């Protein structure tokens, strides 16, 4: 007689606040032994009503608000916003400002990728490398402070250009920093790519296949790690990237094969640090002379925006992937009628599910960290019922019913 067994899974909730997660996000795992059978991700714990606040301010004030959507992407968010406003108002950005924007954008990518590399090393218990990466990153931050006046919140952008020029006397420090970053890159490449522990821990875990990456619309290094050639800098060149030229970085550049695992994403980010150093050097070399802002008088600029009736879209490649800002002006006031932000992590949340399925519990932190998630950027909408003061979610059917009801209301 065969013994009957019933196979069951048990649930583990991780988050919203958890030591292994840097930011609040909630995972619900179905676990069978050590294997993850199913995952559910819940977001929405750090909604800060930034868009709502922005719809009550003028565009100059919003630049600094957009800067605070994410502490690490404090250049790309205002850049996307400025480009959206420039798009709506048909403002031409001077060529020199475009090159300066490239320098700052790439400097931010270096800082972000190095920070990520440190966090990833920390997640697998390799804290020596954490300190090594952050030592290298410190150089990049010092250069940022030297060029913009502050380490993190750069406040360098304005609508129609940039606020600070890169002068002749700045070049010495830039060259010195680039040399030391190259040196640091060599050390890091050795620590990550030649190390047995990193390989053991990251190869074959958190696999995202090419098809899944396409289907789930992954962006940035997460998509490129799976071999998807997707990079806004190359697909739709903005600022001066078209002149300088950017190539897609996929893991097969180095290893000749694409596995789509955590190791591949490490390779992509490391190679992008190298690429960014090259891009900064090229941008500094090719930088043309000229103005850095199209309209230096801010009251005049605000008056110009006040008369605009229309909408604009700004998209650019953040360290984590594509960022899209949408702005609409109604022609009555300088305050935007609508401001919509789509941060890159939003597109990288769903790929977590195929990545985590089939992996072990101990792999959760490194797999979750491998997409470089930024929860605070992602949380855009929270739906709260005023009467009961309870959060509720809108699923497809409810949304469909709401839409049908609205149509009926409008007919009658």
């Amino acid at each position: 007689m065969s013994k009957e067994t019933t196979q069951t899974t048990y649930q583990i909730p991780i988050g919203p606040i958890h030591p292994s997660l840097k930011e609040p996000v909630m995972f619900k795992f179905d676990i069978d032994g050590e294997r993850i059978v199913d995952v559910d991700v819940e977001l929405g714990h750090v909604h800060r009503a930034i868009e709502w606040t922005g719809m009550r301010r003028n565009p100059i004030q919003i630049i600094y608000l957009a800067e605070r959507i994410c502490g690490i992407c404090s250049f790309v968010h205002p850049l996307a916003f400025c480009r959206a406003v420039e798009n709506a108002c048909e403002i031409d950005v001077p060529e020199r400002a475009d090159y300066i924007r490239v320098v700052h954008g790439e400097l931010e990518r270096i800082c972000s990728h190095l920070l990520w590399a440190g966090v990833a090393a920390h997640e697998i218990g390799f804290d020596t490398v954490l300190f090594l990466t952050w030592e290298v990153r410190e150089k990049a931050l010092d250069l940022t402070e030297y060029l913009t006046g502050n380490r993190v919140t750069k406040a360098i952008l304005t609508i129609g250009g940039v606020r600070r020029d890169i002068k002749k006397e700045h070049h010495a420090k830039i060259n010195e920093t680039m040399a030391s970053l190259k040196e640091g890159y060599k050390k890091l490449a050795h620590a990550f790519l030649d190390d047995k522990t990193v390989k053991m821990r990251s190869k074959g875990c958190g696999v995202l296949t090419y098809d899944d990456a396409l289907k789930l619309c992954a962006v940035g290094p997460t998509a490129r790690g799976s071999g998807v050639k997707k990079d806004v800098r190359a697909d739709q060149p903005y600022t001066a990237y078209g002149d300088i030229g950017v190539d897609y970085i996929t893991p097969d550049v180095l290893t000749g094969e694409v596995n789509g695992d955590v190791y591949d994403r490490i390779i992509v980010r490391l190679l992008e640090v190298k690429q960014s150093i090259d891009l900064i050097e090229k941008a500094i070399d090719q930088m043309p002379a000229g103005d850095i802002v199209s309209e230096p008088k801010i009251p005049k600029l605000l008056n110009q925006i006040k008369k605009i009736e229309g909408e604009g879209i700004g998209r650019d490649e953040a360290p984590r992937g594509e960022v899209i800002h949408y702005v609409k002006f109604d022609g009555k006031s300088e305050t935007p009628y609508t401001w919509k932000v789509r941060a890159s992590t939003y597109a990288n949340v769903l790929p977590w599910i195929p990545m985590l399925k089939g992996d072990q519990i101990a792999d959760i932190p490194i797999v979750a960290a491998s997409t470089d998630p930024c929860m605070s950027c992602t949380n855009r909408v929270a739906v709260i019922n005023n009467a009961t003061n309870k959060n509720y979610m809108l699923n497809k059917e409810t949304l469909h019913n709401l839409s049908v009801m609205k149509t009926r209301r409008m007919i009658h």
Partner: protein
Amino acid sequence: MGFSMLWPVFKQMFKKPWTNKFPAKYQPNNTTKYLADVAAGKAKINPPVPTPEGFRGKIVYDTEKCIGCKLCIKVCPCGAIEFKEKEKKVKFYLSRCCFCSQCNDVCPVKCISMSDEFLLSDADPYSKDLIVE
């Protein structure tokens, strides 16, 4: 391969640390008392890392030059500037300031500038050090 990190570790032992020991080399037993001693000139402070040129620190405001045009209030992202109706001058609350230097850029008479002072933490957001007028 097994001992490849031994030499870097050995080198590290004799390197000068990167960390700038601020405000004192060792954590004082009583920080408040230590700061009081520094103010009285009894103890010496270990200086912070110098700020680069163009650093955006505490706002410096020239009341004489100000014409009361309110442009700075219009562009301030955090509402840190208050207009004094009677005197037609402005008042900066640094506890709300985000140090973006936009008021400095927009000022038509250049009466606002940014100093390199950054040690501004205080328990009271309305303390005398945090209000510029």
